[in-house]
């Protein structure tokens, strides 16, 4: 191709980017705008407008049947205080926070353990990395289907495995107290992305530090506590924040798991024990056509996520200074 020939040229033009031939500037502007035009049109139609429209709808009583009427902040107040109209709003928040508090730490610990183990070995490390990554690329619809079958109270693999140790079988997805732990276990099963990012973090720890610690007589536990954990702090922090943001929005899996049997009757599991915030929102938007209320819910979530993100930046700044 032409590139090897071209590669010889820079010597002639010592200031790349500075020398513009006259007249090329305005044409450049046009070309630049043309190239970003598709993306910008997309952005305006499918991102900017929907975001503003959602904000507007959240102050209306829009229900698809009639034109939206402005109702001010009524949706927000009703969601927070009217437990006749929205009996499960606070329940959905509790469920989501519970899930976040269990699933995120469980995922991070599993991912770190997997990364540490893989980082220790040489032979077969690619194979193990691949096998532990498989659950990540699996479609939510398939994950839900597979795990419903694994958790099957009578014929599922989970209960027969526990039976080997004399642990009595449970009806995992139909016992309110067990729903969140069961969902969290699936989340930890899918921890592959965090594992890969931890592995990259571990590779970033210089060998010299570890070797120096070994010479100084530090055992594996001490090395883990004094070197690995502190050096991985930025990674852990990043994974924690992104993990929390993702967990607050968990939807696909709970939708799939709790929509079987009755077709359209998604209820969010036994006694709403699996009714996550976004599932609750989805039901109001697409089952009960309460678009105004659903949009208000989505902005409460948005606000919450913004606060978490802002706190993260603050924390990072403190760390840096």
């Amino acid at each position, binding site marked *: *191709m032409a590139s090897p020939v*071209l590669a010889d040229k*820079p010597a*002639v*033009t010592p200031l*790349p980017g500075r*020398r513009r*031939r006259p007249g090329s500037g305005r044409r450049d502007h046009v*070309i*630049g*705008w043309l*190239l*970003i035009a*598709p*993306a910008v049109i*997309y952005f305006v139609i*499918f991102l*900017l407008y*929907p*975001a503003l429209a959602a904000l507007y709808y959240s102050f209306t009583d829009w229900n698809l049947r009639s034109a939206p009427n402005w109702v001010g902040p009524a949706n927000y107040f009703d969601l927070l205080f009217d437990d006749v109209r929205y009996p499960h709003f606070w329940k959905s928040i509790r469920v989501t926070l519970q899930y976040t508090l269990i699933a995120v730490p469980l995922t991070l610990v599993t991912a770190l353990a997997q990364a540490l*183990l*893989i980082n*220790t*070995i040489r032979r*077969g490390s*690619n194979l*193990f990395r691949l096998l532990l*990554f*498989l*659950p990540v*690329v*699996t479609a*939510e*619809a*398939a994950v*839900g*289907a*597979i795990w419903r*079958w*694994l958790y*099957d109270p009578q014929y*599922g693999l989970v209960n027969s495995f526990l039976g080997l140790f004399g642990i009595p079988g449970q009806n995992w997805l139909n016992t309110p107290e067990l729903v969140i732990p069961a969902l969290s276990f699936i989340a930890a*099963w899918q921890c592959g992305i965090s594992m*890969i*990012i931890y*592995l990259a973090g571990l590779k970033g720890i210089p060998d010299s530090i570890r070797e120096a610690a070994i010479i100084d007589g530090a055992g594996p536990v001490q090395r883990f506590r004094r070197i690995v954990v502190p050096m991985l702090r930025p990674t852990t922090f*990043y994974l924690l924040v*992104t993990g929390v943001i993702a967990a607050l*929005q968990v939807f*696909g899996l709970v939708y*799939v798991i709790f929509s*079987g049997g009755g*077709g359209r009757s998604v209820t969010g599991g036994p006694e709403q024990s699996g009714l996550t915030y976004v599932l609750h*929102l*989805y039901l109001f*938007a697409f089952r009960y056509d309460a678009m105004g209320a659903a*949009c208000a819910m*989505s902005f409460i979530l*948005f606000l919450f*996520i913004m606060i978490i993100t802002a706190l993260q930046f603050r924390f990072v700044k403190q760390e840096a200074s």
Partner: protein
Amino acid sequence: MRTAGKARLAPVYIALVLLAAISVIPFLWMLATSFKHGSDVYTKVPSLLPLDRKTGEWSPTLENYEHVLQVGGLGQAFLNSVWVCLILVPGKLLVDALAAYAFARIPFPGRDKLFVVLLAGMMVPTITLLVPRIHVTQALGMFDSGWGLILPNVASVLDIFLLRQFFMSLPGELEEAARIDGAGRMQIFWRIIIPLSKPVLAVVTITSFIFHWNDLVWPLVVLNDPELYTLPLALQQLASSESGRAYYIMAGAALAVIPVIVVLLIFQRRIMQGIAFTGLKS
């Protein structure tokens, strides 16, 4: 580490084998169930192999796959998913790469401010956009259609960001030299930028294929016509309507899972690098 010796690594390998087993056994269980005769599925002692429940002999069957492909509508859904990905993934890559190139390389007034606005748009949660996006899709006359699946997903700010980062890291001298030789911006894009960016283009393509092949939420809200269902949506429907027949559901799940696993096996190194890169960047 050499001094550690092989014996000390034994517990590490044992732990890894156990973790890998937890990771993989659900897939083996899925496959085993999908190849079992209906009468062999519901047994007291579960089996990870398709065995006859009475004689214990090897007796796999393909009838579950035949059923879900033909009667269950998963054959049509599989083709729909293939079509959607064939149009959406390259289309999205083109839109994103063109925009990223301009953002990285072509200076024009307001460019960087615009880019910041785009990045800010990334913060809005998908669920917030979902309801109005449906409305926009209806207004454009694309609700419940193939284009309604494709167009609302045809660009990604995150991908533009990643491609821009990569384009900016390419040496500017090549381009400058090409310009002096009289090459236009588009020639430079196709002849220089694209060939030099194959690794990052591959990562973006693969991850976007996996994402859209697996996506459930958008098809769920935008489609009514079962003829148009994508594979995850059809699988979800099958899981509801055949909820007592695990062998059908697992055959359907296998159809959804296997193509992605094949892609993962082929491109595993690229995918892992891509995740480490994007993960640490953000």
